[in-house]
């Protein structure tokens, strides 16, 4: 009796032991993403971030496109034919060589699945001598940027099943997979035949941990070396520890309110501006996000070319907001909520908890909008409700985080979100001048002046209301050094990291 209790305690003590939580020489990476399948179109971003798969084109920290598996690219005079010269001597993890045919195969399969490539005016991709050519039906200056997106990753032909579905990830990156256990883990080791400089740390492991609290605790306890995606509160807590270094970098992601521009309450730009004026961006940034400042315009400084320092910033002025709404015929009702033609100014704000700060900001907005007499009901639900509501017209307001550089050149996102009928962009908002400017930029005509003009239109019309510019934060254990953050969220940069002395 006593003996078995004692044994249990002893066994626990033995397992627990005073041994440090970390003793192996594997770099443990923890992030929120779950590996669904060896399928580039769904989980591809994990493989590119882990340095397992690569794309033809890469982007540097400023967003400039740099060579990847393609060393060089050029476009024809008419802008309709692109040629990408392939890097020599690149081998896949299964030992086969990367050829023009294998690259075309990978891109054609990617184009057949939902993703940005599918919507491009591509008429054909053909193998050439050490190069591939992409032909277009209309000019597209940003094509190389599209090929830097994770779904355009180049995998060996053996990676795909007969129907094109991914069966195994055989990439060209500095690390090759040694074990993969969807949905939560992945082990990889340095690839001996990598074309570039070999990584310093040989063994890496990935764990998907969806709860941000758990990730932060893993960083705090020294359980993980590289913890991605931290919540603001944990950042300040981890910042107090010596054993962990918290890195933070502005990224091209904006926290914004998307609104239905044909909703009777929101159709006038004045109404949208009133809502914008109601928002205490500095307060939200400091208290909720723990950032030094809020957004002053839609595009963060990280979005090169589109951010315009000259633009007059979005402000916070409750009095003016009330005045604007009064000008639109709204009057304060008995409960403090505005009323017009017998209708209360009540709206539903849809958001999703996948990013933990969103429901928090929504809760703050609820109070700040109430201060100008607007009632918000918060619907924190599955992220798909936003595009679904956009499509069927039922969406009123949505709070979301939008990355302008999923494709390193923001033009693709701007084009689909604010000119096309992009699910995550403006809803029922059309502006001919804006469309003309953006279409020109996409074709390759126009530069910073045009971009600034487009940004100014967005600032004036407010088809979406920016709230804050994101910073990406991650925690790195003091066991390693050389960690960096890719503002374009394309790579964890594992191959540049080394064990601390």
């Amino acid at each position, binding site marked *: *009796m*006593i003996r*078995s*209790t004692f*044994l*249990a305690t002893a*066994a*626990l003590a033995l*397992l*627990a*032991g*005073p041994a440090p*939580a970390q003793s192996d020489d594997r770099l*443990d990476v*923890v992030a929120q*993403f*779950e590996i*669904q*399948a060896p399928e580039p*179109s*769904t989980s591809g*971003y994990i493989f590119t971030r882990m340095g397992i798969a690569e794309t033809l084109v890469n982007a540097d920290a400023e967003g400039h496109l740099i060579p990847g598996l393609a060393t060089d690219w050029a476009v024809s005079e008419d802008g309709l034919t692109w040629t990408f010269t392939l890097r020599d001597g690149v081998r896949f993890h299964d030992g086969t060589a990367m050829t023009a045919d294998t690259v075309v195969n990978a891109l054609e399969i990617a184009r057949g699945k*939902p*993703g940005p490539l*599918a*919507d491009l005016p591509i008429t054909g991709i053909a193998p050439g001598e050490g190069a591939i050519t992409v032909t277009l039906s209309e000019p597209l200056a940003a094509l190389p940027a599209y090929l830097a997106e994770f779904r355009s990753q180049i995998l060996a032909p053996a990676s795909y099943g007969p129907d094109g*579905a991914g069966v195994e990830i055989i990439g060209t990156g500095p690390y090759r997979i040694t074990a993969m*256990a*969807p*949905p*939560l*883990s992945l082990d990889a080791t340095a690839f001996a035949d990598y074309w570039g400089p070999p990584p310093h740390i040989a063994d890496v492991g990935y*764990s*998907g*941990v*969806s*709860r941000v*609290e*758990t990730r932060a*605790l*893993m960083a*705090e*306890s*020294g*359980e993980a070396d590289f913890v991605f995606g931290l919540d603001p509160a944990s950042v300040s807590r981890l910042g107090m520890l010596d054993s962990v270094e918290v890195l933070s970098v502005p990224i091209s992601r904006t926290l914004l309110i998307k609104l239905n521009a044909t909703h009777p309450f929101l159709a006038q730009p004045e109404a949208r501006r009133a809502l914008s004026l109601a928002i205490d961006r500095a307060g939200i940034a400091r208290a909720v996000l723990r950032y030094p400042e809020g957004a002053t315009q839609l595009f963060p400084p990280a979005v090169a070319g589109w951010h315009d320092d000259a633009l007059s910033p979005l402000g916070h002025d409750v009095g003016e907001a009330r005045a604007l709404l009064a000008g639109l015929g709204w009057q304060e009702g008995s409960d403090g909520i505005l009323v017009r033609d017998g209708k209360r100014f009540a709206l539903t704000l849809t958001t999703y908890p*996948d*990013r933990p700060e969103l429901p928090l900001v929504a809760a703050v907005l609820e109070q700040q909008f109430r201060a100008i007499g607007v009632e918000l009901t918060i619907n924190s639900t*599955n*992220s*798909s*409700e936003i*595009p*679904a509501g956009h*499509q*069927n017209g039922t969406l009123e307001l949505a709070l*979301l985080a939008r990355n302008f550089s*999923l494709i390193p050149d923001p033009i693709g996102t701007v084009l689909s979100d604010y000119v096309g009928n*992009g*699910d*995550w962009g403006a809803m029922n908002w059309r502006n001919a001048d804006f469309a003309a400017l953006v279409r020109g930029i996409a074709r390759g005509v126009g530069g910073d002046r045009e971009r600034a003009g487009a940004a100014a239109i967005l600032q004036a019309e407010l088809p979406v209301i920016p709230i804050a510019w994101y910073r990406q934060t991650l925690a790195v254990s003091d066991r390693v050094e050389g960690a960096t953050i890719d503002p374009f969220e394309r790579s964890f940069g594992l191959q540049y990291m080394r064990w601390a002395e």
Partner: protein
Amino acid sequence: MSALASRLVQAIMVALLIGAATFAMMRSLPGDAAWRIAAGRYGYDNVDAAAADAVRAELGLGGPALPALLQWLGDLARLDFGTSLVTGRPVAAEIAHQLGASASLALVAVLLSLLIGPPLGILAGLRPGGPLDRGLLVASTGLKAVPQFLMALVLIVALAVQLRWLPAAGHGTARHFILPGLTLALGLAAVNARIARDAMARIAAMPFWRFAQWKGLSERQTLIRHGLRNVSVPLITYLGLQFVTLVEGVIIVESIFGWPGIGHALVHAIFSRDVPMVQGTALVLGLGFVVVNAAIDLAVRHLDPRVAA
């Protein structure tokens, strides 16, 4: 044999019930499923109309649900669970993969709880009203009043973050089992200890206990020869009933500890409307209960000849 027959009926009812519940779930948001599945597959950055259309086209969603339900039951009869809407892999393969992780965690939890609870319970039951009995009552009542997620937090903060004895979360090595296992085990042990205590107190008050001592057996001999086996019968029976509590705990604990098991899969499948996965996991959990209890019926039958009579 009739006990096993009733377990079979229970199993069939479980299957029907899960079919009906998931049927209702699928019908409740008919147009939404493709979107949800697309969000599950592509993530919030990339879910858009094109992705939802692709899902809709691929899976043939939006058809009438009754044939779908009948189809599922028919497939089930052939032991075919279908394929996951999110990952596209066969549900059976997904579950087989995740069940191992959950089952090993559950097993560790049960073993730990058996090492902690019953020995204390038996000692307390031998001296009802004694200090150990009172202490155990307080401790087990207190433990029962702690929700599992709270227990998990306390253990992580104390043992992983402050003392750094154990990994806070994750999986892979034996050490990773301890915190989630202990979280589950403490809740189970609180109940186990009470059951063992009550059974022991009841047995110690029975004429055969007294008679064994009158025959000349020492306290210790009486306990070993007549106590343990008799205590184990109600204990094992309750273990079967605790299976449900265990599974509920596993759902919460896996979410907190990032454990790649069936509970984690279930929550995700419900989030993303992956109906075949919900059906599959729920069915495995429900039938797991039936199978475990059928096995326990047999074990009790073996231990207690009166049950067989």
